[in-house]
């Protein structure tokens, strides 16, 4: 425990150093890990124990970085995959450089001097990638990041150890594999391990904790997963929860408003606040800032209220156009609404409408 705490502070200090050397704007925004291309920056937020949130272009990424290697939840966009890999490796180097070396008693073991002068051992590879959905801003880096890693022997590589060098395992709900295959995604970007039940567990601890993957049926899509780091008490929510817009409900790919609400309530069921509805279980949204259960509750309230309003309007016989004109989201539009871009308020209202019509 002490070791982890010290390591955590060491990382903060190292990240702070990189921050201080950056431009003034970057200093305001916090801990920045600047990569080769100055246009894209990744920010690494230590959360608890070995778990980090990595924010940049595309969806947020959860990382578990430690002695077992790296486990990633989502891989961002294809365009940023090189820089993402560099950011992870930089984080690993900082952890290795600043990590606390446990001292042994010489009479029981060997001299510590050789360890003192030795550079850090090479970082462990990326072992697992878990996709929360098939979206290209969450799975776009699958191929690059997987190829940079190496799976722990077992599962699909049993019996042929040479396969272990073929990259990190990519885990997802089987609907992700089905839809990516249909979309003719590159073979190396496809999930290597899928599950079709309501949940899947990694069969052993990774970096000191159990990791639970929970399927949330028909929410953002029909292949959504929540990833629960049980020891660190962190949930990677994928696009079921985001702080930068209304939830994206991909009706064509099996998404549904009720599934989003169920997913948010499930996150709340799993969460325990530290004190006064603050802290405790931390939630990494698909996009936006790091959150806790209170933030999820506000978001859950919002989407439930909007669902109820549109449901009521449908009951009154209003058409989609009439519902849009009535602006059932107007109290939340200044915060979450958009009139341009890939997910507008109109598209959200229409998706809710379609979800509720389907339900009927």
């Amino acid at each position, binding site marked *: 425990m002490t070791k982890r705490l010290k390591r955590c502070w060491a990382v903060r200090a190292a990240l702070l150093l990189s921050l201080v050397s950056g431009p003034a704007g970057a200093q305001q925004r916090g801990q920045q890990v600047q990569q080769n291309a100055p246009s894209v920056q990744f920010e690494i937020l230590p959360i608890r124990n070995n778990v980090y949130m990595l924010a940049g272009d595309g969806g947020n990424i959860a990382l578990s970085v430690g002695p077992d290697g790296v486990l990633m939840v989502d891989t961002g966009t294809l365009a940023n995959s090189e820089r993402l890999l560099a950011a992870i490796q930089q984080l690993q180097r900082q952890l290795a450089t600043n990590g606390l070396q446990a001292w042994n008693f010489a009479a029981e073991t060997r001299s510590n001097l050789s360890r003192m002068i030795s550079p850090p051992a090479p970082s462990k590879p990326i072992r697992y990638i878990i996709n929360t959905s098939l979206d290209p801003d969450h799975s776009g880096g699958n191929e690059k990041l997987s190829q940079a890693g190496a799976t722990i022997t077992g599962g699909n590589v049993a019996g042929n150890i040479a396969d272990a060098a073929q990259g990190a395992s990519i885990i997802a709900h089987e609907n992700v594999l089905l839809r990516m295959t249909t979309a003719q995604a590159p073979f190396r970007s496809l999930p290597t391990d899928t599950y079709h039940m309501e949940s899947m567990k990694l069969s052993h601890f990774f970096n000191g904790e159990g990791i639970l993957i929970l399927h949330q049926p028909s929410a953002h899509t029909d292949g959504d997963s929540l990833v629960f780091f049980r020891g660190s008490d962190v949930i990677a929510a994928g696009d079921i929860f985001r702080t930068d817009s209304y939830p994206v409900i991909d009706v064509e790919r099996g998404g549904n408003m009720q599934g989003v609400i169920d997913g948010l309530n499930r996150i*709340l069921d799993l969460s325990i606040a530290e004190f006064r509805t603050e802290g405790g279980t931390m939630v990494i949204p698909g996009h936006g800032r790091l959150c806790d259960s209170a933030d999820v509750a506000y978001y859950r309230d919002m989407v*439930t209220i909007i669902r109820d309003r549109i449901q009521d309007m449908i009951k009154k016989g209003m058409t989609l156009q009439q519902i849009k004109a009535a602006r059932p989201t107007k*109290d939340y539009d200044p915060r979450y609404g958009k009139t341009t871009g890939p997910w507008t308020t109109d598209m959200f209202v229409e998706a809710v409408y379609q979800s509720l019509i389907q339900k009927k």
Partner: protein
Amino acid sequence: MPELDVLNQKFRNFGILEFPIQSEIANSKVSEFLNRVKLIVFFLFILIIPAVVPAFAQIDFSGEWTPNGNEDSIGNPYVGDWLGIPMNEASRARAEAWAASVQTLPEWQCRPHGFAYIYRGPSQLRISKEVDPVTRQITAFHAEWLRSVDVPIYLDGRPHPSENAPHTWGGFNTAEWVGDTLKIRTTHLKEEYLRRNGVQHSDLIEITTYWIRRGNILTWLNIVYDPVYLTEPLVRSQEYRLNLNQQIPPYPCDVVEEVDRPKGVVPHQLPGTNTFVKEFADKIHVPEAVIRAGAETMYPEIRKKLK
């Protein structure tokens, strides 16, 4: 005992200087001259005092403070009392949809009052301080109320966190001295209420707060900027007085099942079903349009619409 004799006794105790004792006033010019010198030295001493105070003044705000009630503190507000808040259309729609029973949801039962509201609540305030052990400068204040959370206010020059960092009920606060006034900047607040009747602020607000102390009175001036729900800054203030006998009691909170309702229900009022706004307008004999006038209700000109 003559006044000056009393003063002399006090000054003797401090070993500083003496005023001429009335009974010993000498008529000689030398004696008069010396006495004048003493007076000049005394006034110079008084003038020097500000110069030896540190360049960045540090007023001590720590202590137990109790809020002074005033006509502007409305305690438990009526639903629909939106007067004095520069609410925009979205804010009014949000407040109109609000149902008090939302507080019975498990997620909200132990929600504390947020920083943008609590300073005007009826709760006692404790301000404590952190002091650098070497320089003995104040590096942080902590404000804490009943039914609220600790609000650290840093004076050590640290930057605000990244925009991707979590938000809290107390927000992230840094401060600087403006003379003897403390100017506080608050970011990273969770969404919360500005008034406890559904008037919400967003999680994108910033607050500027001024602490002004005059003896045992603390003035708390609060300016809220919310790009989501306010059309202009909301400026409010609160007076506290020092209360040496005050103790803030603990306020434990356990979540219980307050209302037996189906899972997933979020209490709210559908558009057009809120009758409370009209009830409030009727109660105070004000046109409903005035209730909905937002920023206009902050200014005296609104009286023209009351006729």
